[in-house]
């Protein structure tokens, strides 16, 4: 409960900026409802002035009709202003929250991003924010107008006649009971339906997704049989769920009709005895028709509100997430880097209790090549994470040219590294946009030179629009090798003094791989390079080889010394490359 309260307080914080809209909206809502309820009374009065042949008070009728016209105009205006205010408030708040959430994403520690599925974070920024806006803000106005409508209707009805009001108030709850009863009964049916539907979807995904295999084994008939079995079952339980839940509307409408009949009879009996006028009765009938509506809305709103608060809580959790440790205030920019990298007594682990790297020391001279080898999943990316300061070391320090990387700005540290990862990432945009990421002001000539140096020019040239070809999110229609070449070109364009390269495994064909290999070689000349290596030649030519296993660095040395050790590396080398 307190959780809900703090969430609501935070929501109010966002609304505060738009309090004028909120105030205006509330006033207009109250006005709209009151005027809407007032109208049937006026109608009733007119009817009372039209009694019978020759007994019509035209002067009176005209006077009231004029008032009605004014009331109608005012209601419409108030309603419009309310709508516009609500829209403005809702969409602006959504905009603010999304912008803030996104800004947070850009400064979240990698630990958070690696630890949460992308889908989850995306759904917070998109779906949750939408639900929150719809639910909380729309819900609030509905709740508010609903409440005023109920109170207003009650007040107006009581002021006219207590007895008939009693009839309305007593029969109406029946409608909720019926609705609740049906909802409870159909809950299980819907659950069965959604389970069966899930089963069917799973089968569809499995079989259509692997249709080529199904066809290769001529297994279509058997699969169809299996599908039909589920399909028939789904048909049966869907019919039940849909039919029983569709009884709700007719049933509540029936209760409404009962209320109407009750009001008609009691009202008419009162009218015979002169208790009320015909106009008042007609007014009552209008109220009776409208009375249940706000109740239904409010009961819907309550669940929606709760859902909205839950959504809001998830968004706030993201927005309030601890950001990465900011650069030190006096952090200097790394300048004129030679490329000396030193890791001194480094301890690191992703999870506090699980030690990973302990007391790791490494000194890399400017221009040296460091190869990182080990079986898949051994945590080679951990080293990249530490060098780029995507993660901070737990103890010890990493220095570039003698400077602790925590004492310099992240921006300057990262600008001095060129990074090509095996999981290529390209942004939606043109080929050119992707290449100039590191150097937005690059000239056409520089771009082409870089592309030529990385052997990407020839394939880019053959794309439909060359360098201006738009590639979809995540590279879309390019092959894995082509994507990798583009990522290399990106680094080639700015060529920083230190490199981090991740060699591709088997998914690329030999010829492209040779190209990539050549491009890597060009880049590495005279630069300190860290290479996650799979190829024997790369490993053998490295000045230092780091052998990793289960996240830990277990051996260190060059090819000859490591082979002589006859340890894990020697074993790995013999099994993987000597075969």
């Amino acid at each position, binding site marked *: 409960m307190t959780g809900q309260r703090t969430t609501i307080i935070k929501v109010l914080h966002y609304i505060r900026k738009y309090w004028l809209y909120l105030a205006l909206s509330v006033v207009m809502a109250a006005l709209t409802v009151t005027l809407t309820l007032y*109208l049937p009374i006026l*109608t009733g009065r007119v*009817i009372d002035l039209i*009694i019978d*042949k020759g007994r019509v008070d*035209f002067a009176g009728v005209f006077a009231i*009709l004029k008032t*009605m*016209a004014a009331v*109608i105009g005012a209601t419409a205006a108030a309603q*419009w202003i309310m*709508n*516009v205010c609500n829209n403005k408030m809702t*969409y*602006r708040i959504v905009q603010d929250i*999304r912008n803030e959430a*996104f800004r947070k994403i*850009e*400064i979240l520690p990698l630990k958070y991003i690696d630890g949460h599925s*992308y889908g989850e974070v*995306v759904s917070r920024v*998109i779906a949750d924010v939408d639900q929150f806006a719809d639910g909380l803000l729309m819900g609030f106005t509905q709740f508010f107008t609903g409440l005023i409508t109920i109170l207003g209707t009650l007040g107006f009805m009581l002021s006219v006649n207590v007895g008939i009001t009693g009839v309305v108030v007593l029969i109406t709850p029946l409608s909720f009971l019926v609705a609740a009863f049906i909802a409870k009964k159909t809950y299980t049916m819907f659950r069965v339906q959604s389970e069966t539907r899930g089963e069917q979807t799973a089968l569809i995904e499995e*079989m*259509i*997704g*692997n249709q080529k295999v199904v066809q*290769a*084994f*001529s*297994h*279509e008939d058997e699969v169809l049989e299996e599908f*039909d079995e589920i399909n028939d079952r*789904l048909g049966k339980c869907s*019919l039940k769920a849909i*039919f029983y839940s*569709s009884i709700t509307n*007719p049933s509540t*409408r029936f209760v409404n*009709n009962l209320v*109407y*009949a009750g009001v*008609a009879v009691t009202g*008419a009996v009162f*009218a*015979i005895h002169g208790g009320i006028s*015909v106009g008042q*009765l*007609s007014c009552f*009938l209008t109220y009776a028709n409208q009375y249940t509506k706000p109740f239904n809305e409010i009961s819907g709103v309550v669940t929606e509100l709760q859902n909205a608060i839950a959504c809001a809580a998830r968004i706030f959790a993201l927005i309030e997430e601890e950001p990465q440790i900011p650069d030190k205030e006096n952090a200097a920019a790394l300048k004129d880097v030679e490329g000396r990298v030193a890791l001194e007594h480094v301890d690191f682990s992703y999870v506090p209790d699980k030690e990973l790297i302990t007391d790791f020391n490494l000194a890399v001279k400017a221009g040296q090549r460091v190869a990182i080898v080990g079986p898949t999943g051994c945590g080679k990316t951990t080293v990249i994470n530490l060098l780029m300061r995507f993660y901070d070391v737990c103890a010890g320090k990493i220095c570039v040219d003698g400077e602790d990387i925590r004492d310099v700005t992240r921006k300057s540290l990262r600008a001095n590294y060129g*990074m090509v*990862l095996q999981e290529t*990432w390209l*942004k939606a945009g043109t080929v050119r946009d992707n290449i100039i990421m*590191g150097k937005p002001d690059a000239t056409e000539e520089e771009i082409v030179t870089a592309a030529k140096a990385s052997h990407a020019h020839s394939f880019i040239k053959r794309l439909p629009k060359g360098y201006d070809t738009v590639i979809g999110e995540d590279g879309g229609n390019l*092959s894995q090798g082509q994507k990798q070449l583009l990522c290399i070109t990106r680094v080639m364009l700015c060529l920083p003094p230190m490199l981090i390269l991740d060699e591709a495994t088997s998914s690329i*064909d*030999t*010829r*492209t791989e040779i190209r990539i290999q050549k491009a890597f070689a060009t880049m590495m000349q005279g630069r300190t390079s860290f290479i996650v290596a799979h190829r024997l030649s790369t490993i053998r030519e490295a000045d230092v080889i780091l052998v990793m296993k289960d996240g830990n660095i277990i051996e260190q040395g060059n090819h000859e010394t490591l082979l002589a050790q006859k340890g894990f590396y020697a074993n790995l080398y013999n*099994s993987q490359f000597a075969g």
Partner: protein
Amino acid sequence: MKKLLVYLRDYKKETVLAPLFKMLEATFELFVPLVMAAIIDRGIGGGNAAYVWRMGGLLVALGVIGLVCSITAQYYAAKAAVGFSTKLKHALFAHIQSLSFTEIDTLGTSTMITRMTSDVNQAQNGVNMVLRLFLRSPFIVFGAMIMAFTIDVKAAFIFVVTIPLLSAVVFGIMMLTMPLYKKVQAGLDSVLGATRENLTGVRVIRAFNKEQEEIDSFEEKNNALAHMQLFVGKLSALTNPVTYIIINAATILLLYTGAVRVNEGTITQGEVVALVNYMSQILVELVKLANLIITITKALACANRIQNVFEIQSGMEWEKRVSGDTAEVSAEAYAVEFEHVHLAYAGAGAESLSDIDFRVKKGETVGIIGGTGSGKSSLVHMIPRFYDATRGFVKVDGRDVREYSMEELRHKIGMVPQKAVLFQGTIKENLLWGKEDATEEELWQAVETAQAKEFVGQKDGKLEFYIAQAGRNLSGGQRQRLTIARALVGQPEILILDDSASALDYATDAALRQAIGRMEGDTTVFIVSQRASSIRYADQIIVLDDGEMADIGTHEELLERCSVYQEIYYSQYPKEKEAQA
């Protein structure tokens, strides 16, 4: 959409009865204001309490009849809609299964899954809503007008003007905003895309210090979205106030006309109340109708997408009859022949395979090697006729593959696809895909040949071990070996291993090849691989380069004369190159 209505054929009765009962219900609803008018005029006017009670009873009776009609209608509507979607799904699933690889490639798996699931559901919902409401709402609107005419012609003319005016406003605003909402959706998609992109590319973005630029570009997209939403919001915010003004202005006119007519003695006070009631019924129904139209538009869009899938016909015709002359295969016929085969995929500019020409004798082993995209998989996919040659012939046992029936051809061939796909179910169920009536012994035999005996033996329940969806509870190598075993169970005459040993270590890979070599019968084997070691001992090795046959021959021959083969081989065996140099 029209063509999909076939699937309602078995529910003719329901499709007629559902709207009929809805209209009955509406009719009874339309009587209510008349009864009320009678209560006012004769009950109150005449001071007759007994009459009031009788009429009250009539109101309740009308309500009960309405309830019964309505529930009946809901039942028939639900039955028709669910029946429709069940039949539709069956037909769609069967249709998708009948498509050939070419169509599967163009359509894309995720599209087909969406069609089968959410699109069909939307269509079902559409049918249900149409049956329930599409007749009811207009019926009430026009019914109210007709009832007004029965009361007073002059007053009824106000209805004649109001209804089109209201419809114009309600539907006009809807038509205007619908395309705009599509734009809003597109804007939301781009905001979503930007968010996702920044999560997947977080390392690169930070490495290039692009955070601020990304924030700027996100805010631009987000602000554009908000702007668009506000614009659409302003438009749709008009609906309520405008309709409110129209309907109530009409009421004012009605009251005035009523006053005049009552004064003339043409109609009674109660009838004025009835007219006012009819007017208020109209708005409610029109709003319902507008919402219904949105649902219908969505359902129609879905239905059209489904229809489009139905219109895609398999580009491949199969021989229907199974020829009985299987025994006639002459001993000297080649098991597989490619005669100047060319293959261009649908929509592709260039050929994926050109002029492939080779012959394989029964019992031979053929290795196929080349870079990615060189056409290795395309080549073997043509043997079970997954794709048809654009030019040239593919023959199996001396007969063109196009002369076989689907079952006959594919039963000859055991295919182990690149992606090790297993299905949810026990190991045994998966293996039986290869041969429905295989004995336990045959299964174990296949498992043994596929080098899977050891790990299958260690699983709980052995062959009864339950494989989770997508084979998640098995390792990549285990999955691969089981897919091989599955193909072996059918004792195929031709076995195709499409790069299907990539997750196996060298030793297992070698053992597998030896075991396959020892198999009974003259199995012709195709091995596609990137590893030179896997195909080294094949009787013939086909070297593919960019869709063309660079060469064909034995390992020794190729190493001698084929530069592409040398390049591949020495990149994997650098030592031997050094030894040569």
